[in-house]
């Protein structure tokens, strides 16, 4: 579903942000990417979304190479950013309607939107409330609702639980679990080791643009992820 093949990004200032990344996220799988700030997590997501062009290698979404056919590739992926920033003067439903139309969904009714907003756990009274009055947790839920409405087979999330209170973060992760159970490929960058261990099917650790560790849920059950993470942050890149 999501595949990076020798994906490399070197910025104009010479910084090697991503160094020959190879990974694959299958349908119905949650992949959590860990790493310090500047490790290359967001660069990976930016490359998958064609926000920046790769220096080398390729990112594929559902078989489409992003750099060659970005519009076709992006039809198969939804994106939730660290801070879901929407149109503050629009209501939750209006924001949902706009991004649904961008995704090519022009057939949805008000009830359809309300159903999705209920699913993500937004309170009924917030449906027609202006988004500028929303808390961060509410905006993140709306971001997930946008991803649900798009109904794409893959979802990319850039530190979605950052800044959320524990309850909001737990609700968000539960929602992502539902999406995974629906068969979506979930690719998420995060600093949240606890939730990564709890929810991810696979976890990767990045350091200085390289994927230095990869573990499955089963492997992690036997290990202390925090210890692993700290160890990898201290040693030289190995992969």
């Amino acid at each position: 579903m999501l595949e990076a093949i020798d994906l490399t990004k070197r910025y104009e200032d010479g910084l090697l942000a991503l160094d020959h990344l190879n990974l694959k996220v299958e349908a119905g799988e949650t992949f959590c990417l860990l790493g310090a700030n500047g490790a290359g997590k967001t660069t990976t997501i930016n490359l998958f979304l064609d926000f920046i062009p790769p220096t080398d290698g390729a990112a594929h979404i559902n078989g489409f190479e992003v750099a060659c056919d970005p519009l076709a590739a992006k039809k198969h992926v939804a994106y939730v950013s660290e801070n879901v920033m929407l149109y503050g003067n629009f209501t939750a439903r209006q924001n949902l309607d706009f991004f649904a139309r961008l995704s090519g969904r022009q057939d949805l009714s008000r009830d359809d939107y309300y159903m999705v907003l209920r699913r993500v756990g937004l309170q009924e009274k917030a449906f027609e409330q202006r988004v500028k009055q929303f808390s961060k947790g509410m905006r993140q839920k709306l971001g997930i609702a946008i991803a649900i409405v798009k109904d794409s087979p893959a979802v990319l999330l850039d530190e979605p639980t950052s800044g959320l209170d524990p309850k909001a973060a737990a609700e968000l992760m539960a929602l992502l679990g539902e999406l995974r159970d629906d068969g979506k490929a979930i690719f998420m960058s995060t600093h949240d080791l606890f939730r990564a261990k709890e929810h991810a099917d696979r976890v990767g650790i990045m350091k200085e643009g390289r994927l230095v560790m990869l573990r499955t849920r089963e492997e992690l059950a036997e290990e202390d992820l925090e210890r692993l993470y700290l160890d990898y942050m201290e040693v030289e890149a190995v992969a």
Partner: protein
Amino acid sequence: MIWAIARREVLESLTTGRSALLFVIAVLLLGTGLYVMDRDYDTRRENYDLIRPSQDQSVAVAPPNPLSVFARGLDDAMGRSFEISVINVEIGGSQASANPLFGLFPTPDWLYLFRVVFALIAFLFGFDLICSEKERGTLKLMVANGASRGEIAAGKWLGGWLAFFVPVAIAAALWLILLRPLFGLALSGDDWARLAVFLGLGSIYLAVCYTIAVALSALFHRASTALVATLFAWVLLVFVIPSSSVLVARQLAHVQPLGLVSAERWRIFGSEMMKAFEASNADPSSSPFEAAWGEMHRQGDMVSERVAGELGALARTSAALVRLSPAGAFDVVSTGVLGTSVAHEAQLKLEVRRYKNAILPDLFSYRMRDIEPTYPAFTPRRMSLADTLAAAGADIGAIVLAGAIAITTLFVAISRYDIR
């Protein structure tokens, strides 16, 4: 996709009340401008009735142009009376209103409102269209949801333009409907056609201003920086380039000072009269004065044509430089279409010279025989709309070219825009 983005832009303008506020501003500005200019036109019309010559007066004076309500241009200068005598043509009274404030402040006609005020509003509607999406973080979400950069630029442009243009267009249409019942301003079919062309050109000009601002919004990543650049562009295009173009043209094109022209005319007068007196003294039975007057006018016309040629060259040089700014080009072409331009004033002066030469034999004859004169009415022809538009090709081209450059800049900038 484009329409979805445009629709959101329009909805945002409606939600925030921006378009409604613009509509109120446009109604007030256009209405006030129309009221003030119509009152001024009425005054000039009354003054024209006062100075309009009777059949026994060898005076050429053109009535005020009703379209000067929309673009006053040089209508004041064109409303002066030209008193024709056997010696020369004296410029007499004017129809201009006596309100000295008109001299101190810009005339609030529609041309000014479009060229300066609505251009500024167009700039303000467009300056943050792209960069505010980036600042807000929604640009990433739009791109991630499958909108191409070109579609985002086109959709944002279209939506912002509709949010800006529709309120202004409705306000203008409202006042045009009320033109006759409220102001009593009667326009001919030709006048309406000219007005329609003026408003069409105004729409194109405002679209160009708006597009320049949108292009600037795609060149910067912060709305505050884009605002400074936009205001700088507005001042440059609307004020600095047109004003400095006229000053530069003045340095490039030679025009004899009016004092020297007047002195030359008096020299011709003195010389010819001296010859006539000498001839009369030499042969008292002769009548050399009619020939002297004729020669004075012939030489005077040569001076006038030379000065008109110099002024024409100055006007052409100014117009060529002014075209560097769409505001300058719009000014030139609008006054041309509405009949109050430099070219129309030059045409009127030519008409006055023709009229003078047509009545000159009668003038001499009545003078010599000392009988009650009867002169034909002065009926100046106005340049046709087709001729005006044909002559304005370069100005219209300059406005369109500025728009094409802005559109190209917008699409090149957005294709390279760092949306992160």
